[in-house]
Each structure stands twice: as structure tokens, then as C-alpha cells.
């Protein structure tokens, strides 16, 4: 086939996907804020996405903080800058690693689960069944997940920030023989409110991305078990890539003035 036609076809397919995703996102948002809101479903998703992700997110953030402290120590000790380690740990965690790590872990845990659940519901006609039972699937299935994901991820990231800083603290105090009180005061010294808040904004956006991609892929999956598998993979891959891209864009947006 004509190579130009191939490029054109791929490009058109890409545009079509972007378009249908944007429409899906708009519907998800619209149905999140118009009654009826299924409070039970929202609460259930809060528990599923938030509470049950705590161990995974906490543990990854904890070890990330530890590694961060160790690695910066090997680097900084070469030019006697060990005193900067607490600042590096706290700024990296709150601004960057907390939200990104939590986002990626939740993408793997929740994005995949949502895509698989909705995909199975689609191929077993449960989504059509919802419509015949006078229940809008966007309101009953999509809105609670997207709403809960967007609201709960900042809370998870707050936990991740604390766990990460604590990991760095433990390594520095017990392994590298820092003074504990000094470490804590150093951590606070250069930390600004917006370092934390920018991370929480990122978290909200990542939560939206993860749940939206899971819902979009699951909702539009077709073709039995294989289709559901494909939807799950696509949800996780797309969410992970989008998280890293929007992370860059948002960092630019927040800190370009500095």
C-alpha cells in the first residue's frame, strides 16, 4: 500500500481516538455533577481506590524516599553537600515522586481493575442491561469511579509524601549518622506550601487520568476475553504515558516563573 496512505490512516485513527476520548471525558464530568448521584457507588469507589491502595502506595513511596537519600548521599558527599540531602528528599517527594509514584501504582492497580471489570460487563451485556433498567451507565459506573479517583488521589499522595520523607529520614539518621533534629529542621527550612500543593494538584489530575482511561477502555471493549485483556493493557499503558506527559506539562506550568 501507498506509504503516505498508511501515515494518513494512522493519523486519522489517532485523531478519531482523541476525539472520542474527549467526548467520553466530557460526558464523565457532566454526569459527575448532575443528579442523580449514586452516593453508595461513590463511597464504594473511595474505599476501593483510596483505602485499598494505601499499602502499595505507602510502601513504594517509603522505599523511594530511602533510595533517594542513599543516592543523593553518594553524589553530594563528593563535594561536601550532605546538608542538602533533607531538602532534596522533601522537595523531590512532594513535587515529583509522590504524585508520579502514586499515580503509576494506582494506574497499575486501579486502572487495570476498572478496565477489566467494565470490559467484562460490556461483553456480558451488563452495561446494556443497566440501560434497560433505567439506569444511565455513565452515572452509575463511570462518574463514581472518575469522581472518587480525582478526589482520593491527593489524599493518597499526602500519605506518600509523608512515607517518602520518613524513609529518607530513617536512612539518614540510622545509616548515615545524621542528627535527627537537624534533619527535620532542614526538611522544613526550604519547603514551601506550593511545593506540596502543586503535587496535590498533579495527583488530582493523575487520578482523573487513571480512572478515565480505565473506564474508557473498559466501556468500549469488544470481542470477548481477548478484548477485555487488550482493554486492560491499553488502560494501564495509556494512563502511565499520559501521567508522565502531563507531569512534565504541569511542572512547566507551576514553576516556569521561577
Amino acid at each position, binding site marked *: 500500500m501507498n506509504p503516505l496512505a498508511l501515515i494518513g490512516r494512522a493519523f486519522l485513527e489517532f485523531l478519531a481516538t482523541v476525539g472520542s476520548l474527549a467526548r467520553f471525558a466530557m460526558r464523565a464530568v457532566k454526569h459527575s455533577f448532575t443528579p442523580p448521584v*449514586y452516593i453508595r457507588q461513590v463511597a464504594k469507589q473511595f474505599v476501593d481506590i483510596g483505602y485499598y491502595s494505601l499499602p502499595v502506595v505507602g510502601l513504594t513511596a517509603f522505599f523511594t524516599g530511602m533510595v533517594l537519600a542513599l543516592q543523593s548521599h553518594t553524589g553530594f558527599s563528593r563535594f561536601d553537600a550532605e546538608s542538602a540531602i533533607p531538602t532534596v528528599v522533601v522537595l523531590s517527594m512532594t513535587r515529583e515522586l509522590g504524585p508520579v509514584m502514586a499515580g503509576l501504582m494506582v494506574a497499575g492497580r486501579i486502572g487495570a481493575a476498572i478496565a477489566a471489570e467494565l470490559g467484562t460487563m460490556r461483553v456480558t*451485556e451488563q452495561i446494556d442491561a443497566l440501560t434497560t433498567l*433505567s439506569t444511565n451507565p455513565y452515572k452509575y459506573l463511570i462518574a463514581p469511579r472518575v469522581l472518587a479517583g480525582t478526589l482520593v488521589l491527593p489524599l493518597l499522595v499526602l500519605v506518600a509524601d509523608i512515607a517518602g520523607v520518613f524513609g529518607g529520614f530513617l536512612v539518614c539518621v540510622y545509616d548515615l549518622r545524621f542528627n535527627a533534629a537537624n534533619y527535620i529542621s532542614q526538611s522544613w527550612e526550604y519547603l514551601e506550601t506550593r511545593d506540596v500543593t502543586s503535587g496535590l494538584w498533579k495527583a488530582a489530575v493523575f487520578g482523573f487520568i487513571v480512572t478515565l482511561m480505565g473506564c474508557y477502555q473498559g466501556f468500549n471493549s469488544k470481542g470477548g476475553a481477548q478484548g477485555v485483556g487488550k482493554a486492560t493493557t491499553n488502560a494501564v499503558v495509556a494512563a502511565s504515558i499520559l501521567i508522565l506527559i502531563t507531569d512534565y506539562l504541569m511542572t512547566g506550568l507551576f514553576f516556569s516563573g521561577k
Partner: protein
Amino acid sequence: MSAVPKIELSGVTKSFGNKHVLCGVDLNVGVRESVVIIGGSGTGKSVMLKCILGLLKPDAGSVKIDGQETVGLKGQALDEHQAKFGMLFQGSALFDSLPVWQNVAFKLLQAHGMPRKEAKERAVATLASVGLGPEVGELYPSELSGGMQKRVALARAIASKPEIIFFDEPTTGLDPIMADVINELIVKSVREVGATAVSITHDMASARKIADRIAMIHEGRIIWQGSVKDIDHSGNPYVDQFIHGRAEGPIKMQIRKL
């Protein structure tokens, strides 16, 4: 039959890409009539039901319910249109995350906002009418046999007393005895609820039992319709081949895919 048919299809066409599934379907269903659509696999039976329900939008033609055009309805009007229907899906399509009684009472709970206690009483009563005890209500769909799942799905379809009920291959995958039980339940419950029924099936025993009138669909068109007693001397070679299940005849099975 009363003057205005309950369901009136004229010239309904629907294609997916190059595949023409419906090529101008004309069909009238009277109030409280039970019409069975027969036809081979892939002749557009399910697509036709989805077009009437508004789950799919026909490319052309009109679908009237009580004389009102329903193609192109949106928002509130579409919700009201879909609220008239109950549907028994081929694979039952029960919500596996909910216990049986919540499945049966789903529309009452979610769409009508009925208190849980009252809804549960209604669910138990409806389960009893399909021959299931109240203890079944506490089980989850995955704990039930295929025949019991079908009964629960039937209970769910009739619980809200819809005006029109669709049965999508209600006896597929059941043993002949259970199939007959389901057929009798369908006849009985449709009569009790006073609903108009449209069923699609390729099980002739089932069709003879539940139909007032039978219509045969072939290559996207209704090629024959008439009362049950006329089906054995329809004089239509397509119908004859189908009801006797002969491999030889005017209907050519496509063994090999293109």
C-alpha cells in the same frame, strides 16, 4: 389488535461498515401481543431489538412506540422511552457484584428510589412468581445454575412491570425441561404483567409455546409472518427449511468466512 400498534417498525436499516445487517425491516406488534422473531444466527435479530430500545441508532427508517417516533430521541425523552422496556438477555447479564434480590429490585432501588425494605419485599415476591424461594435472594449470581440465573433475569425483567418485554434467546443453553419451564414462566409472567412481548429465538419449541405470531427474519428483512398455527404450512421454502432444521434449502449457510 387495536388501532395503534404498540411497536411499529418501518424501513429500518442498519449497517456496520460494509456489513448490511438490517435492510428495511417492517414489523408491527399489537398491544399485549407476543411476537417471536425467528431466524438464523447473524441475521440481525439482536440488532433489531437494540434499535427498538434505542441502544443503537438505525441508519434509516422509523421506530414508533404507541404511535410516537422514537428514533433520534435524546436525554430525558430517551430515558422515558427506555423506561418502558424490560429485557431478558441471552447470557442473563446479571450484575455479579450484587446479590440476587438487589439484581431483581435494581430498577426499583436505583431509578425509582424505593426504600430498601419495600424493594426487597417486591423482589422476594417476584422471585416467588418465577418459582424461587426467598433464600435465593441472598445468593450471588455466580452461585446459581444457568437455569436459575435465567429465572432471576426473568424476575428482574418483570419486577418493574414494564409495558414491553424483550426476550433474547431465552432458552439457549438450557436443557429441554428447563427450557420448557422458562417458556411457561415467560407466558405466565407476560400475561400477569399485561405486557407486549417480543422474543428472538431459533428454538422452535420455544417459539411455538410463547408466540401469538411468528415472524421470520432473513438477510435483514422480515420474509414471512403469520400466526403459530400457520407456520407448518406457510408455503415459504425459507420458513420450511428453518423450522425443520434442514441443511439443504434456499438458505445457504456460509461455512467459510470471507
